[in-house]
């Protein structure tokens, strides 16, 4: 069930009705059932049903592990408390350590199992193709056949979310949830299954399980946000996709300035599609009265790559920082390495070395988690390279800023934003062409083969987009930009539309009309399909 399918919209309408018409105390159960239905629907085709059980495995193992860890922690606290007087310090410490090891064992077991599933499903074929490559290198023909796995929907997102929860419980951040069905709801909350955000349990728990009465203002705003998401996705992203696909699909035809154009189109397409999807997700949650955290904060206004990654897909970045970057970089071996390197390599290099090692490993993983392929790995390392580069160049920048006194001035800010945008676009080409050598070659043609005049003369009209398409895209992008500009100073809906529900209803109506008319959906979208001739 894609967000943009009629089935999904019908599903939503039914859910919203049931959610508020049945007794409100059942709401969380209804949401859980909806999530399981949504998930099962993805595996309805014969031969694919088993994909459904991976999420069940994750729910059960994570739930049980968290409960066990919690119980262990309680026993420990109880024991220490009752024997407060009699225990001496060392015995107490040894006991605590013993119990901690037990908890760690449970945690590790559960992590290995769940990330193991993820790794096997996602990376087996990548591994096989690399093994085959090596085998071929040695001139042998005996290749390993690839395996056809059904990749369960949203497996990365729910795995990350559940494992984050488990680690938090292990760290004693909050107690584990008693009711397994409530935990199942947290993992399978359907709007975020497909593309996140990755929620933290303590963020969501407050609003996820309590009854919500029908609040017209909140519900209409939720619907407004949903429609805004569809507008971005259907009117802008899907229309733009035609051009992007055309350019990327034929690197031999579309080189030089086309590549530049493709990169910009892709940046817009990706932004509109991804943030639109998240708007739909958060909007649905808002209608249901559930708080889901924001996942984007106008990322294209970032002034550095590092800042960009704090503002793009925020929940994923936060997850990696919290559960991967910090544990790795403040682990004992890493601190030892830091000490050693500072002693032997000097203060400056020594300080950086462990951080950089952690950074590189995090980016490598960030790169390959969405798809196992070399282009993604190179993409991740590319990001890492620019982040470290700007870190290293900081003293230089400082000097420059002081010398010319540009820091904070508007033109300089705009320059910084454009620079960041350009770097991100360039890196993203790896994601477009899905092939490392081709990407570099195409990137090169931007500078070696100058064909901008020709592109503007006729090329623009040959990539599957017509003049009306460009007009819609231009207007859509202008709306997007304006909303972002206003959004810099707070929630657009609150700022511009105040609290008058009539305005919300009107905005919803206008958005609905725009989506229905200008959306790139349905078979009619390909106008060539509807030809009235040959009787």
């Amino acid at each position, binding site marked *: 069930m894609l967000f943009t399918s009629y089935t999904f919209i019908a599903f939503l309408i039914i859910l919203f009705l049931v959610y508020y018409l049945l007794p409100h105390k059942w709401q969380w159960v209804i949401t859980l059932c909806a999530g399981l239905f949504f998930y099962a629907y993805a595996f309805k085709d014969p031969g694919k049903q088993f994909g459904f059980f991976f999420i069940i495995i994750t729910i059960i193992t994570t739930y049980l592990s968290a409960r066990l860890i919690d119980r262990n922690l309680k026993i420990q606290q109880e024991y220490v408390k009752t024997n407060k007087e009699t225990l001496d310090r060392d015995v107490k410490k040894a006991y605590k350590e013993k119990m901690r090891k037990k908890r760690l064992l449970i945690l590790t077991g559960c992590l290995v199992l769940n990330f193991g599933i993820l790794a096997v499903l996602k990376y087996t074929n990548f591994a096989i193709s690399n093994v085959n490559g090596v085998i071929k290198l040695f001139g042998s023909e005996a290749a390993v056949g690839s395996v056809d796995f059904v990749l369960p929907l949203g497996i990365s997102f729910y795995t990350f979310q559940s494992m984050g929860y488990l680690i938090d419980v292990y760290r004693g951040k909050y107690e584990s949830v008693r009711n397994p069905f409530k935990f199942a709801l947290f993992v399978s909350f359907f709007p975020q299954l497909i593309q996140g955000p990755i929620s933290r349990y303590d963020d969501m728990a407050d609003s996820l399980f309590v009854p919500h009465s029908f609040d017209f203002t909140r519900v209409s705003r939720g619907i407004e946000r949903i429609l805004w998401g569809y507008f971005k996705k259907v009117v802008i992203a899907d229309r733009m996709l035609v051009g992007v696909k055309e350019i990327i699909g034929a690197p031999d035809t579309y080189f030089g300035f086309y590549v530049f154009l493709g990169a910009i189109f892709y940046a817009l397409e990706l932004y509109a599609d991804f943030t639109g999807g998240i708007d739909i997700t958060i909007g649905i949650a808002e209608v249901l009265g559930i708080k889901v955290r924001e996942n984007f904060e106008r990322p294209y206004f970032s002034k550095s790559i590092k800042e960009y990654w704090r503002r793009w897909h925020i929940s994923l970045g936060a997850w990696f920082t919290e559960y991967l970057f910090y544990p790795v970089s403040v682990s004992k071996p890493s601190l030892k390495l830091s000490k050693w390197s500072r002693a032997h390599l000097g203060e400056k290099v020594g300080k950086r070395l462990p951080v950089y090692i952690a950074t590189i490993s995090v980016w490598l993983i960030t790169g390959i988690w969405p798809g196992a392929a070399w282009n993604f790995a190179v993409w991740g390392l590319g990001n890492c390279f620019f982040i470290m580069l700007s870190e290293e160049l900081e003293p230089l920048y400082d000097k420059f800023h002081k010398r010319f006194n540009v820091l904070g001035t508007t033109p300089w800010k705009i320059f910084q934003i454009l620079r960041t945008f350009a770097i991100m676009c360039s890196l993203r080409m790896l994601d477009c062409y899905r092939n490392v050598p081709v990407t570099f070659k195409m990137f090169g043609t931007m500078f070696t083969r100058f064909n901008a005049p020709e592109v503007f003369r006729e090329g623009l009209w040959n990539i599957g987009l017509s003049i009306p398409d460009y007009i819609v895209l231009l207007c859509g992008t202008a709306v997007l930009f304006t909303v972002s500009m206003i959004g810099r100073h707070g929630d657009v809906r609150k700022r511009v539309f105040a609290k008058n529900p*009539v305005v919300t*209803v009107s905005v919803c109506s206008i958005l609905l009309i725009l989506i229905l008319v200008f959306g790139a959906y349905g078979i*009619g979208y390909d106008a060539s399909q509807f030809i*009235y001739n040959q009787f």
Partner: protein
Amino acid sequence: MDKKRKVKNIILSLLVVAALILILAALTRLFMPKYMGEVKEGALIGEYYDEEKDFDVVFVGDCEVYENFVPLVLWEEHGINSYIRGSAQQLIWQSYYLTEETLKYEKPDVVVFNVLSMKYNEPQKEAYNRMTIDGMRWSPSKVGAIKASMFESESFIEYVFPILRFHSRWNELEREDFRYFFGNEKVGDNGYYMQLGVVPVDYIPEPKILGTYEFGEASWEYLNKIKDICAENDVELVLIKAPSLYPEWYPEWDEQIVDFAEENDLKYVNFLECTDEIGLDFSTDTYDAGLHLNLSGAEKLTSYFGDYLAENCDLEDRRDEPELSALWENKKTAFYERKAELEEKFCEK
């Protein structure tokens, strides 16, 4: 005060929603193809609902009925009140549901079905489906027709809210979309679509050799359903094959229909076998080199078929009914006006 404001807000919101519905309805009408320009065939199906539904003979089928039979001739020569429920590439399940729908409105004496569509066992072209289905009024028959005709890439809801299907026409709207916003012009004469051009047959393409000459399962299913529903309603079913030189009507196909007619005690007329008796001259009687007849050919064919009907089916001559005669008088005027108009256009060319 606060309550007053709340009531005001609710009323305003409802007004906005009402405006939204109105706008969407207007946009739907605007974006729906009007079939008033080059392709008038799409408007034929909808015209039936404006008629006094009291016909003796109803034709169902594809272009081989609405291009080839002239109800006016049947009236003038035999007092038969007839109507053609034909549409471009009407598929056999669409013919079935149109028959079903027609039989809910009225009980004619004879239903005439042109068997060419037996060759299609699955939906062919979405655009044609739309021409047949969009003209139908909502009824269980329309639902059935949609379900039977839909492609996998289509959704039922796109028929309920056609804006979902036709919204992409926003950048190809034409004058006719605005001109006929509030209603179409009548394009047919009792379902007959008049053509005056003459393009003689110069050659007939060599028929392709087919893998199988057996009609498909769905085709048989719906032919049987048409037969059954006619029998249930005490309506005589007459099968015909219009005298179009191509697309090819294979002898193997003809045999199957002959056998079917025999088994079920139905009348079947293959006009291809009696073109000489009809007096068809393929150098003057077709407007597209043999696919369809022009007015001159259609008049000859109808005249021949009228004799057949009068002779073989139990049909009354209704020319003595004053109301009906008056109605036909008007139709006749409209028919000749159209003819004159077309002739004028034809001469201009």
